């Protein structure tokens, strides 16, 4: 005769079973909740940490390549004035895909705001910085130099995009030249399929004739993807990068 204090394994008391079920269920709930919180931390914080690190790496590589490629324009000899020398190539070769080729400064986003611009708009590239639409014009060239960037996550580069106003400056610096674009139109809310916004003369922009334009795009509901925000700018000045500039960004 079996004692009551050691029930056989195949005859577990129902209250024990119930306790096991409730405990397992609550453990699963706790685990799921923890997972969700961790994922939110990942999206909000960790992607930013990763993006900042990647952007810093891209910028360091970019500056190294500039220093290696253009010793005559080194800041050590600003008065040597080889100013017309670093003119952009007249032919229009593409930038190397997947590589950073310029830095962007937008004073409206703050004096410390600077991001590398990479060639291509793949999601993988946009994790490291801003992406140049490969089929659009080169920096400073006639046409529409178009750039996409994250509004949220991955460092939130274009978080303050709606604060851009006509008259704001967008400054781009490549190996030899510093291009200042001035915003003329936007921010305009449009649909993701509206590819005309990056055309050489975008239909909805204030521009009517061919020129040296710039387009920035990002997603519109801050955390969504149903629309896009667009601003258009026009080239208003170039000067040798070594001179620096008074626009508020010393670099």
């Amino acid at each position, binding site marked *: 005769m079996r004692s009551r204090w050691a029930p056989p394994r195949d005859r577990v008391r129902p209250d024990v079973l119930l306790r096991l079920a409730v405990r397992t269920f609550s453990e699963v709930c706790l685990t799921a909740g923890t997972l969700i919180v961790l994922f939110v931390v990942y999206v909000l914080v960790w992607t930013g940490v990763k993006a900042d690190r990647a952007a810093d790496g891209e910028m360091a590589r970019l500056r190294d390549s500039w220093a290696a490629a253009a010793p005559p324009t080194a800041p050590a000899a600003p008065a040597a004035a080889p100013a017309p020398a670093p003119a952009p190539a007249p032919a229009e070769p593409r930038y190397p895909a997947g590589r950073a080729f310029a830095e962007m400064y937008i004073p409206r986003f703050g004096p410390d705001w600077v991001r590398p611009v990479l060639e291509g708009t793949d999601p993988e590239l946009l994790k490291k910085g801003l992406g140049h639409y490969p089929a659009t014009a080169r920096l400073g060239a006639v046409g529409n130099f178009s750039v996409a960037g994250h509004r949220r996550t*991955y460092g939130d580069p274009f978080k303050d995009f709606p604060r851009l106003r006509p008259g704001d400056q967008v400054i781009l610096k490549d190996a030899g030249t510093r291009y200042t674009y001035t915003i003329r139109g936007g921010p305009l809310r449009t649909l993701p399929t509206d*590819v005309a916004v990056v055309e050489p003369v975008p239909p909805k922009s204030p521009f009517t004739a061919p020129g040296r334009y710039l387009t920035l795009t990002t997603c519109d509901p801050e955390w969504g993807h149903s629309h896009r925000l667009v601003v258009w700018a026009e080239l208003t000045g170039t000067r040798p990068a070594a001179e620096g500039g008074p626009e508020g960004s010393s670099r």
Partner: protein
Amino acid sequence: MYGWIWRHLPGNAWVRALISLVLVLAVVFVLFQYVFPWAEPLLPFNDVTVDEGSGATP
């Protein structure tokens, strides 16, 4: 579940606590390194281009 793991860890309570901590950190590492990067593109924050970059221009 967690009770089962705890009972199957070797050593006394301190050793088990240490192993548990290591296990938790390992799980978090795997999540951040592999699982979340896979899951994140399923969210809409990556769509910042017009026409997803395919023939975005004339």
